[in-house]
């Protein structure tokens, strides 16, 4: 079994290398210009990707972006990089309830995973920024995050000799600007695609799930309908499709008194009170603790929450109302065995290739 998995992983890596070589051979490289890079992802992820025309992905841009992602000079105390709170081994989270910034003050919300951002349009738990190019301004300049103005970051990078050539390769001139820093970071983060979990291997016909995992898959994507004897957890309505991601903002019934207004802070609209972004469940077993306030320590706790009666507030997601496996039931009503099967499915979403891929690792630690 172990040997089979190893062989499959080797085949997968070889296919990645082959596709890279094929691409390398077919591209029309113009001397002195950055080389276009096609980001690999499976067809079942769909092409609703977000790459701005003014910042196409290039090999050199991604290389620079990776260096900047792990560059501690971008923080005021020279200790913190993006990679400090977004660790590759934890699917680019840090395992903490709330991450600490340069001044030791913790963030108000849990650090989000960076997997499959290529399909995300609005960033953070409340969707306050559109586009990865603008997203990075928030952590870089936040007083309790990296705590440094973009002007200071530009000047610090200018003083580090190696960067001028990397900016030259990525953007055609040695000029270091705050826009180019943001563009390179965005290019790198768009390449953080997780698509080789056992669930992906199952979708490619290379892995046979256990009975428990198969039941978990079925429960996850099925809405309960007790009048027809159909059992389901109804997760797919929000975490839909193979990406387990839809760009939605929902109130998932955590509190009767909502202290963090979530999406309402951005829109000011009544219906957005207590709404937060529905996250991807890719690598979810690696990204504990869960929810915007990190209140749940394990997947079992999360499932217990969704299995009990939701706390009803006016903005509670309609998807979580009248969702029961029992006639006239007020809670989801999954059995312990069914909850176990769902966890078995969620564990299938861990992608060991993603968390060990050298293309995403810290270049300063090699």
């Amino acid at each position, binding site marked *: 079994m172990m040997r089979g998995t190893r062989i499959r992983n080797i085949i997968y890596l070889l296919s990645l290398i082959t596709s890279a070589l094929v691409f390398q051979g077919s591209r029309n490289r113009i001397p002195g210009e950055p080389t276009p890079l096609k980001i690999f992802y499976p067809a079942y992820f769909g092409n609703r990707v977000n790459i701005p025309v003014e910042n196409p992905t290039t090999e050199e841009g991604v290389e620079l972006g990776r260096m900047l992602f792990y560059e501690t000079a971008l923080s005021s105390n020279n200790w913190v990089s993006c990679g400090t709170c977004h660790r590759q081994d934890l699917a680019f989270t840090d395992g903490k309830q709330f991450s600490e910034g340069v001044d030791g003050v913790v963030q108000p919300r849990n650090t989000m995973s960076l997997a499959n951002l290529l399909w995300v349009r609005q960033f953070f738990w409340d969707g306050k920024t559109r586009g990865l190019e603008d997203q990075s301004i928030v952590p870089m300049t936040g007083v309790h995050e990296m705590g440094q103005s973009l002007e200071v970051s530009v000047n610090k990078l200018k003083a580090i000799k190696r960067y001028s050539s990397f900016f030259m390769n990525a953007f055609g001139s040695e000029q270091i600007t705050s826009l180019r820093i943001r563009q390179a970071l965005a290019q790198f983060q768009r390449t953080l695609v997780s698509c080789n979990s056992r669930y992906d291997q199952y979708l490619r016909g290379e892995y046979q799930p256990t009975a428990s995992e198969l039941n978990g898959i079925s429960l996850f994507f099925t809405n309960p309908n007790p009048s027809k004897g159909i059992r389901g957890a109804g997760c797919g309505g929000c975490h839909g499709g193979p990406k387990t991601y*839809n*760009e*939605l*903002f929902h109130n998932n019934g955590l509190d009767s008194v909502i202290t963090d207004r979530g999406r309402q802070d951005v*829109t*000011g609209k*009544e219906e957005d009170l207590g709404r937060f972004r529905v996250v991807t469940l890719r690598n979810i077993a690696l990204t504990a603790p869960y929810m915007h306030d990190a209140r749940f320590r394990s997947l079992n706790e999360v499932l217990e929450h969704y299995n009990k009666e939701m706390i009803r507030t006016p*903005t*509670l997601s*309609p998807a979580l109302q009248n969702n029961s496996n029992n006639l006239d039931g007020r809670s989801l009503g999954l059995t312990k065995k069914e909850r176990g099967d769902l966890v078995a499915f969620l564990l299938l979403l861990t992608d060991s290739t993603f968390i060990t891929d050298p293309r995403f690792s810290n270049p300063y630690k090699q």
Partner: protein
Amino acid sequence: MRRISCFLITLFGCLQLLTAQDSLTKPTIKVTGEVIKELNLTQKDIAGMPRVNAILRDRDGKNVTYTGVALQDILELAGISTGKDLRGENLSKYLLVKCSDGYEVLFSLAEIDKGFTDRVIILADESMGKPLPPAKGPFRIIVPGEKVPARSSFQVVELVVAFAKE
């Protein structure tokens, strides 16, 4: 005289602020994209348009009647080609319905045109004579006759008209 002018200017400023605040917080339906005239319709605007009913089967299998405005009537207000004019390249146009939680569903223009179908898709704001509940209203789409109600989306905030370009 100068005091009165100052007072009037301040009053006008306050009214402007209140109006701006209102348009931010009061629910409206925006109609944007490939339209002749962009719209921002209030609840009052919608209530003043010709009213139609549509029936949607709920989860328990019961038929529920909703009242609102035919989507086609809203699109005609925005200057979209309908009926006999909906032909040629206009048949590759679509309507993207956007909801406040980020949910989106799509219709081809022909699907919602009385010249093509007897089925009337509506933007509903009432059911059984009452406003829709906050979790689903104030505006939602009702698509009669579909096997699953996935396109009968809640909390609609924007209708975007566009050409399919591929």
